[in-house]
């Protein structure tokens, strides 16, 4: 862990009390907010601060889909699973997407290029199913338009 990361996590701790287990989730959220993911070093530091074994932190954190333990991919893809998107078969889309990218939810592809997660309604139900990539929305997705999109990202990355 580099010095600045160390200090930043320390300043997150300042908002909380030492050894207070209830602070675990808020602290993890803050760390994720800051870095986009929760690193091994961060978990170790949180463990020391709250006097919780790291296994318990990892157990709690993996219970929720919101936490990531690897840095996000260069292209972070979010598939909406809100009600409307669900009716428009976003589950199928998700399955195809994860097959195509060879990663499942909360994972990052080996080359670090893509990562995948799901979310609840993104507020664009009119044009379901919706996905977002690095915050940009792509609407009325089919697996074919999705594949095109991915290929264009790959081109861009070259």
């Amino acid at each position, binding site marked *: 862990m580099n010095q600045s990361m160390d200090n930043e996590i320390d300043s997150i701790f300042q908002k909380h009390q030492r050894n207070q287990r209830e602070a675990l989730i808020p602290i993890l959220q803050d760390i994720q907010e800051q870095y986009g993911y929760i690193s*091994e070093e961060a978990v*170790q530091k949180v463990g020391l601060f709250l006097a919780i074994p790291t296994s318990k932190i*990892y*157990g709690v954190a993996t219970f929720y889909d919101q936490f990531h333990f690897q840095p996000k991919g260069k292209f972070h893809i979010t598939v909406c699973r809100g009600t409307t998107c669900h009716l428009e078969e976003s589950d199928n889309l998700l399955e195809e997407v994860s097959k195509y990218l060879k990663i499942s939810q909360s994972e990052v592809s080996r080359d670090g290029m893509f990562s995948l997660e799901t979310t609840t309604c993104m507020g664009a139900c009119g044009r379901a199913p919706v996905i977002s990539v690095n915050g940009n929305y792509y609407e009325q997705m089919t697996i074919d338009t999705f594949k095109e999109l991915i290929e264009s990202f790959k081109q861009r990355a070259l």
Partner: protein
Amino acid sequence: MIFTIEVNNKQIKAKTGETILSALRRNGIDVPTLCYLPELDATGACRICVVEVEGKPQLVTSCSQPVEEWMKIFTHSPRVIQARKTLIELLLANHPDDCLYCPCNGRCELQHLAGELNVRERRFPNKKSPARLDQTCSALVWDPAKCILCGRCVRSCDEIIGVSILDLIRRGEKISIGTTFEKPLNLSNCITCGQCIQACPTAALREKEAFAGVQEILHKPSIFPVVQYSPVISVSLAEEFGIKPGKDLQGILNSVLRKIGFKKVFDITFAADVLVLELADTLLKRIALGEKLPLISSCCPGWVKYAEQYLPGNLDLLAPLKSPQQIMGKLIKRYYADMQGITPEDIVVTSVMPCTAKKFEAQREEMSLQGTAEVDTVITTRELAKLIRLNGIDINQLDEEMTDSPFASRSTAGKLFGVSGGIVEALIRTLHFRLTMKEIANPKITKIRGFKEKKEVYINIEGKEYGFAAVSTVKALPSLLDEIQSGKKNIQFIEVMACPGGCINGGGQPIQGNGETSQLRAKAIYDIDDKESIKASHKNPAVFDLYQKLLQEPGSPMSSALFTAVFNKRTVLL
């Protein structure tokens, strides 16, 4: 308060505050359990223990529900049996059907329950777990495909041992047991104590078996196979053969090992005696030179790994001496081999231990000299039983035999190494002699006996007080160390054993469901101490002989050359 309840239309007595399960079991009514562990609070996670309570719409988990006076209970009504059966069938849906090839075939709780509940076909389609076998650790194997998520391992590691390396991770379909960041075991903070193996109802957690390899070398003409066994094997092996716990099989153990094909049989208790002399010397020197105290025992490899992970700043407190297992191995390969004119490389030393961590210890880098391991293979008590069965030997038909010279005698002090507090007791007997040249009047130090996590005893020798502590499991250690280091307690020596109650409850011992078995194992050791006459390590004639011929005196350059151990900080996620 004691009251009457009705179970299966019969009256039984129950006590206020106890669970339904405890009332049932006390009255000889058997209800199956899976997630429940007798020493710990129930979680009610698996629901296999459900019973029907009249007036309650839902079945209740007997392991976690308190019994109440008005209750009318049915433990085996059709509804209950159906519910249990469905639960087992659901567990089997995710289970590989490979009992015939499974190391725990015959002792598996899942297999047993499937039989008991008359499961005869697969009702739910099999979704095989894609999870991979973890064989990275030298002591344990983790086979997630066999895990039924009962959580017993997690709770043993948390609540019994106090290391907490495991947890349930994720949820729903992807739930599993795992370490932090799902590190393989060898890169985790697991101390390889094997208590999770004791807890596991299936073969999901098990020792890395080595007995098949032992069987092979026994029949290679170029090899000189030697076996050495821990002080506690003789008082626990009987259980594997259906004999009542607590029977000492020492003489039989020697003959069975020879029958299997070992050329020489040694008792590691001898090496424990040697270690006591060295420990006493180290302690007295540290006291005399005003060096850092307390001295802490380093015989338990689980504890040593714990210290290397959690207490890197205190590693200089650990006695820089090898454990009896490694001392014995070293003496065989360096001294015995020489004496007999055998090339050390031709000798293969097999250790029989109650412990999985000893497998890890034998493979620590510093435990081999010029590429020759001191101990080549370690098998557990359970594996020895398998080896005996593999060879078709009936232990009831054997005559008692002795161990081999030149290590053929032992003291009962060395034998005490098997129980928590035993190292302290052995050490006190020898210290007393070193300081006064007289034997201690009452060698029985009862204050340091028993199953408590932390015990202390203060002994006055010639006007000076010496303090000793014994902790088993690592839970009590940090606070004790604090108290000593802050000057609140005058303790010069701490014995640490990672397993509850000491090696008699090691992770490699016969799987046992209750605390009574351990009591009986301990009693067997104390009985030996009562009965026999050589009660102190320094009175072991073979040890005396070894010092005359080889070591000269405790702490001599020869002793250090042979027995020095080194410990190093380990960086793992804690």
